[in-house]
C-alpha cells in the first residue's frame, strides 16, 4: 500500500494506446554510417562552443573539436574519423563543422559490456573530470553537462536513472536496455560513485517488461545498491520533477535543482555513454535515435553526432505519405521541423540530445472557446490552471500570469493534449512562463 501511494505524481495523460511504441519494438539497433557529418558547435540552446579545428584538418573519432564557451556547454568531439571539409555558419547563427568520413573507421572496443567492471581505480573527482573531458551531457532532452550535474552544491542521497521514456513513439532507451544491460549498469555504477549517493534507482514504466527483465538478470551480479523501480505508465512520468516526486515523494523547490531535493537524475542513455567513456575511452560521439511514425521502416539507429536527419529518414525507408509533419524529439514536447516533407531538403543534424524523429500524419484542429470543463487543471502535473494562464497571457496580463504561478510550467503539453476545444494552452502557458521568468530575473537584478 505504501508503494501505491508513494509512486505517484498528480495529473498526467495517456496520449496513446501503446501501438506507437510497437512500431519499433523487437527491432535491433542498427548502426548508421554516414559519409559526412555536420557537427553543431551549439549542441543545446545556449550551450556554445568554439571550434578547435580548421578546414582541411584530419580528425580522429573522439578527438575534441569544440571548446565550451558557456556554463551549459560541454566539449564537442568528432563523431567520425575523416577530413574537415568546411566550418560554416548554419541556421540561427550556430557554427557547423562538416567532416568527410574516411573509408576506414577505427574499431570500437567493448569493455563496457564485458561483465561487471572493477571501478576501484577511479575516484569521484577522476570520474567527474572524465565526464567533463568526454563531453558527457544529459541525453534525455536538456543536454545539461554531466560534470556540472555531478558536482552538486548540496549532498545527494539518491541517484535516479530516468528510463521512463514516457514520450510516445520513442524507444531508443528501451532498446538500449534490452541490448546492452551490462554497459547500462556499469554506467549506473560509475554515476553512483560520482554522485556520492547511497542508492541508485533505475526507473522504468511498466510498459517495458523486456527491458526490466534484461536489467534484472544482470542486477543480481552487483554489490552496489542499485535496483529497479517500476512505475505505472503515464505521461510525463519521465519529467525530471515528476519522476522525483513519483519515486521519492519529494518536490524540487520552485526555482531549484534536483540536488535541492537530495537527488540527481540522469537519463539511462547518458549512463551507457558514461560506461563507454570510462571503460572504453570513447567520448560521447554517437547516440541511439528512434526514427519512427509514418516512415516505411521504423527503427532505432546508432548514429554519430552530426548525422543528417534527412539521411536518417531515408535510411528508415522514407516518409509514407506526402502529407505529414516531421517532429524532432518526442511528439509531446518536440519541435515540428517540416510539414509535408518530401525527403528532398536538409532538416538539420543529430545532436547529443536528439532522441528521435517522429513523422506524424497532418492534424487539423481549430481553436474554439474554452468550455470550462476543467480538463487542463486535472491533468497539469505542476498543479497549474492552464486555462486561466491562457486567458491572462492572451491579454498580456503579466501580473496575473505571475500570480497564477506560470513560471512553474514544465511544458509537458498535457493541457493542450486534453483540451476538447483544441486550445493552444501549452503554447500560451509556455509563453507566460518565459515572460514571468524574465520579469523575476529583472526584479532580482534591480535588487
Amino acid at each position, binding site marked *: 500500500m505504501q508503494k501505491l501511494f508513494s509512486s505517484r505524481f498528480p495529473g498526467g495523460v495517456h496520449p496513446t494506446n501503446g501501438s506507437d511504441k510497437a512500431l519499433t519494438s523487437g527491432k535491433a539497433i542498427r548502426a548508421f554510417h554516414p559519409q559526412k557529418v555536420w557537427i553543431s558547435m551549439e549542441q543545446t540552446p545556449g550551450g556554445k562552443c568554439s571550434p578547435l579545428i580548421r578546414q582541411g584538418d584530419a580528425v580522429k573519432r573522439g578527438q575534441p573539436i569544440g571548446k565550451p564557451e558557456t556554463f551549459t556547454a560541454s566539449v564537442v568531439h568528432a563523431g567520425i574519423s575523416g577530413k574537415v571539409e568546411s566550418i560554416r555558419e548554419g541556421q540561427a547563427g550556430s557554427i557547423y563543422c562538416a567532416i568527410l568520413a574516411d573509408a576506414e573507421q577505427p574499431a570500437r572496443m567493448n569493455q563496457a559490456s564485458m561483465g561487471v567492471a572493477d571501478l576501484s581505480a577511479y575516484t569521484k573527482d577522476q570520474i567527474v573530470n572524465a565526464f567533463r573531458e568526454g563531453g558527457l551531457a544529459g541525453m534525455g532532452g536538456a543536454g545539461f553537462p554531466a560534470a556540472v550535474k555531478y558536482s552538486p552544491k548540496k549532498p545527494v542521497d539518491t541517484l535516479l536513472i530516468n528510463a521512463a521514456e514516457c514520450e510516445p513513439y520513442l524507444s531508443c532507451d528501451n532498446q538500449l536496455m534490452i541490448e546492452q544491460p551490462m554497459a547500462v549498469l556499469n554506467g549506473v555504477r560509475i554515476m553512483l560513485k560520482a554522485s556520492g549517493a547511497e542508492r541508485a534507482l533505475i526507473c522504468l514504466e511498466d510498459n517495458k517488461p523486456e527491458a526490466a527483465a534484461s536489467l534484472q538478470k544482470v542486477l543480481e551480479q552487483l554489490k552496489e545498491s542499485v535496483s529497479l523501480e517500476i512505475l505505472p505508465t503515464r505521461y510525463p512520468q519521465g519529467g525530471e520533477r515528476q519522476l522525483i516526486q513519483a519515486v521519492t515523494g519529494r518536490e524540487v523547490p520552485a526555482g531549484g535543482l534536483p540536488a535541492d531535493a537530495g537527488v540527481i537524475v540522469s537519463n539511462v542513455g547518458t549512463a551507457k555513454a558514461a560506461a563507454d567513456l570510462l571503460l572504453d575511452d570513447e567520448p560521447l560521439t554517437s547516440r541511439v535515435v528512434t526514427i519512427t511514425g509514418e516512415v516505411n521502416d521504423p527503427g532505432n539507429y546508432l548514429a554519430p553526432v552530426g548525422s543528417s536527419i534527412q539521411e536518417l529518414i531515408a535510411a528508415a525507408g522514407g516518409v509514407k505519405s506526402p502529407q505529414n509533419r516531421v517532429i524532432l524529439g518526442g511528439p509531446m514536447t518536440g519541435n515540428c521541423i517540416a510539414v509535408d516533407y518530401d525527403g528532398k531538403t536538409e532538416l538539420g543534424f543529430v545532436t547529443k540530445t536528439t532522441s528521435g524523429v517522429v513523422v506524424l500524419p497532418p492534424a487539423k484542429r481549430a481553436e474554439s472557446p474554452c*468550455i470550462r470543463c476543467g480538463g487542463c487543471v486535472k491533468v497539469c502535473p505542476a498543479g497549474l490552471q492552464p486555462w486561466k494562464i491562457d486567458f491572462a497571457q492572451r491579454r498580456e496580463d503579466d501580473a496575473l500570469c505571475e500570480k497564477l504561478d506560470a513560471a512553474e510550467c514544465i511544458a509537458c503539453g498535457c493541457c493542450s493534449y486534453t483540451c476538447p*476545444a483544441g486550445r493552444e494552452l*501549452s503554447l500560451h502557458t509556455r509563453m507566460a512562463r518565459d515572460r514571468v521568468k524574465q520579469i523575476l530575473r529583472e526584479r532580482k537584478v534591480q535588487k
Partner: protein
Amino acid sequence: MNLTAPYLRTNRTTRSVMLDVCIALLPALAGGTYFFGLRALWLTLFSAAVCVLAEFLFQKLTRRAVTVGDCSALVTGMLIALNLPATTPFWAVGVAGVFSIVVVKQMFGGIGSNFANPALMGRLLLMVVWPATVMQNPLPRTLPQDAVSSATVLNAAKAGTEGGYTFWQMLIGEIPGALGETSKILLLIGFAYLCFRKVVNVEATAVYIASVLALTFVFGPEGLFTGHILMNLLGGGLILGGCFMLTDYVFVSRRGKLFCALIAGVITAGIRIFGIYPEGVCLGILTANCLAGLISMLEHRHVYGKTEKA
C-alpha cells in the same frame, strides 16, 4: 494544422462532448414520451430547434462566428424541455429557449462564459413570470385520469403525507412531474453512459444527492429524522438535476466542484423543507453556479515546488 507541441491531441472535441450529453438524454426523453404522450417529444424537438435557431440568428445578427456546430445549444434545448411538464405551452418553451440562449448564454460571451446553466435559467424565468405554465404537473397517460389535482410526490413529502405511488412507479417514472425527470432508471442509464465516456464524473452528483437526502431526512415534516428518503430521491427532479444540470461545465477544480455540489445540496434541501415551492433543484443548482467563481478564488491550490505560505 497545429505546429506547436504537443503534436498529439485527444479525439474529444466540444462537439463530441455535447453529442454525448444528447445521447445520454435520449433514454429519459423516450421515457417521457411513453408516460406523457407524443407531445413530450414534439415539445423537446421544438425547444431544441428554437435554441439552435436563436443561437444561429443571434450570432449572424451580431456578426460573430457561428458556433451552433458545437451542439451546445442542442443540449440546452433538450434540457429546457426535459425540465418542464409535458403540458407546457409551446410559446412558453420558445420564450425560455430564446431567453436561455440569447440573454444567459450569448450576452455573457457565449459558450463557456455563461455564469449559470442556461437551461435552468430558462426554467427559472417561466417559474417566476408564468408560474402557471410550469407548476401544473400532468398525470402519466398510463394512469387513470381521475385525479383532478396533480400534486407531485414532493408535495406529499413536504406535507408528510403518503405519496400514493409505489416505489416501482417512482422508479420507472409513472408519477406526475416534468417530462424528463420522472424516469429515474432511464436517467441513470444515460448518466452511466456519460460516466463511461468520462464526460462527467460521479463525485459531485453523489455529494449533491447525498446532501439533499441527508438534510431532508434529518429535518423532516414531523420533527427530526422523519423525512422520507425515497420520496425525496425519486419524487422530483433530484436525479435529473444532479446527473445532468449540476455536472454541466461551470466550475473547474475538483474540490471546488464538490464544494459547489454541497452548497447546491444545502439550498435544494432548504427550499424543499422551508420554501414555498416543493422543489428546490433548479434554484439550488443556480445558486451554486453563481458562487462558483467566488469559491474557485478562495480555494487554495498546491503548485509543484511551492512551499505553503503560513
